[in-house]
């Protein structure tokens, strides 16, 4: 059973604005292959003010598709067309107090129907630029197409890369097998072989740094960040560099700060940029765990 919010259930059991609007002058018809769902959105737009006076939906789909359609009509009524175009699928999901990750595409379908309807009113042809694949990472709702395109666009070669670029695999890690399969397939197309033990390739072009140069760059990056932390009465010091792992000590106000991991991410990003290669910044305590 899906973990639907009360709002989703409410909009499914008592949908608003079901059926086609009479005197509609804008129609959007879209479908999502991933669920077999399809939606027809009809709008009555006031030509003078460009305000959406009425909205209705007809949906072939599951509970959350019907709830998303109902929510969409409630959101857009009273908006101008330009305002309506800024409605995102996340707005629809938020209106419903969230959707399960597998069901986010229902909200995407809602947004697309809206865009198609506005295009229809303006006499334009709406083109769908969104392709959806099988859901791979359930923690962060990342699908196969997204992962594949990101691997291609950024020449990624490890699961770690994919997590850094798309978040996929950054949660429970159950999808790593699926991510590895996509990597294997895409790399094979490029004549490469997926190596699960391989390190991330060098991001920036240029000569390989010596160990000493590398550590100096890392130190430099950390020095550049320290004033920001010191302003908040925190601080950071470099403890050890072990291959791809950079261990640091957070001191002062950073100790026990709830934002500490975000701060680590920021430090990591800065070092990766300066170094031109992927490294991971970890608290020094993690070093003892590993030893």
């Amino acid at each position, binding site marked *: 059973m899906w973990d639907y919010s009360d709002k989703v259930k409410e909009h499914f059991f008592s949908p608003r604005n079901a059926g086609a609007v009479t005197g509609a002058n804008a129609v959007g018809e879209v479908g999502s292959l991933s669920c077999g769902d399809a939606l027809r959105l009809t709008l009555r737009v006031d030509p003078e003010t460009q305000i959406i006076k009425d909205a209705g939906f007809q949906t072939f789909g*599951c509970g959350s598709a019907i709830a998303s359609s109902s929510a969409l009509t409630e959101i857009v009524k009273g908006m101008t067309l330009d305002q309506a175009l800024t409605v995102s699928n996340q707005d629809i999901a938020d209106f419903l107090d969230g959707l399960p990750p597998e069901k986010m595409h229902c909200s995407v379908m809602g947004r697309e129907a809206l865009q198609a309807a506005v295009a229809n009113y303006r006499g334009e042809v709406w083109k769908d630029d969104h392709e959806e694949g099988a859901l791979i990472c359930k923690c962060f709702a990342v699908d196969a197409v997204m992962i594949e395109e990101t691997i291609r666009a950024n020449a990624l070669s490890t699961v770690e890369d994919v997590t850094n670029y798309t978040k996929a695999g950054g949660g429970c890690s159950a999808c790593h097998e699926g991510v590895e399969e996509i990597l294997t397939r895409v790399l094979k197309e490029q004549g490469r072989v997926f190596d699960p033990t391989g390190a991330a390739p060098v991001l920036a072009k240029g000569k390989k740094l010596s160990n000493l140069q590398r550590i100096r760059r890392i130190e430099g990056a950390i020095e550049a960040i320290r004033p920001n932390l010191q302003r908040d009465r925190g601080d950071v010091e470099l403890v050890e560099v072990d291959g791809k792992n950079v261990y640091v000590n957070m001191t002062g106000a950073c100790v026990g700060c709830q934002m500490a991991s975000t701060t680590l991410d920021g430090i990591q990003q800065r070092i990766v940029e300066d170094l031109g290669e992927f490294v991971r910044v970890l608290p020094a305590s993690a070093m003892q765990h590993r030893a």
Partner: protein
Amino acid sequence: MTQGIYLDNNATTMVSPAVVAVMLPFFTEQFGNPSSMHQFGNRVGLALKQARAQVQTLLGAEHDSEIVFTSCGTESDSTAILSALRAQPERKEIITTVVEHAAVLALCEQLEKEGYKIHRLKVDSRGRLDIHEYMDLLSDRVAIVSAMWANNESGTLFPVEEMADLARSAGVMFHTDAVQAVGKVPINLKDTCIDMLSLSGHKLHAPKGVGVLYLRRNTRFRPLLRGGHQERGRRAGTENTASIVALGKACEEAMQHMEYEKTAVRRMRDRLERGILAAVPHCFVTGDPNNRLPNTCNIAFEYIEGEAILLLLNKQGIAASSGSACTSGSLEPSHVMRAMGIPFTAAHGTVRFSLSRYNTMDEVDQVIRAVPPIVAQLRKLSPYWGENGPVTDPERAFAPAYA
């Protein structure tokens, strides 16, 4: 709401009260390890022996040593198929069907990646196999045939006994996933050529977490789990004693109720099916109605989607299941419905009602009354539906841009 009306017995069944009663002592005073030499172990060992005999009787197996207890149907399926491959490393092909349970299909997909050749027999619009296609594929390159006895979604029965005969004469091992069939149709393995059979306790009123692999004597075998000498070394790991005892009792009860399944349960199923078909326009039965489990009825409601139907049924306390993509979290509607070529606007609206001996005619009548307004309510929302019926030429009248 009371307990509700449970028509999802192909998913799992209620543990029968008598089964619960026999297993309870094995959580308390009968805690011994059946492998132990002392009286604590011995009493439990004797209980397992009795359970093995009860399973043997239901399956019509020749020897009680042909019964291997496992943790579930999936484990039995994996054990059977992987054993056949390991025991005959020179054979690199497997024959199965497109409509198998994921326990077999997903394993075969993985084996395909590892280099095995998988033949998946197709089915026709009624879910039936083409026996000639099957015969042509049997060869000494095939390690094992794995075909389900009864389909979990449509209830359609495969002629596994004849298929096993054909496999035997071609010198090929035969396994059947009989998880849905055991307890619902009579089985007499000693008169067949079936080498291996999987069953799952929770489909026949035993608890979850126990299954059986039937392994015909003299079938070449390699265990999946190695370790202790439990199950004669064919499935290591300390026995799930309470559940095994429970499964034995459930098999005994299934034997007693076999006739009831074939008559009374079938009558309830038939009444439900006729009642819904008569009251709801544009719906049809999927699978092979003349050759299926007596408890299963799968109806495709056109132009609406299954999950929405289930949610509305559930609101009235009625439990069923659907082959729609949305209920599974997968991308596609049921592979079984697609394999039978059910059109997309119907495949998403399939609902499976699966009964048991615990259902009543009164419940059936309540469901017959509940379904038509639910279908009408959802069709009112559907872009494929007009005032009083489907729009003319639905596929063309509503042709959305697909993402």
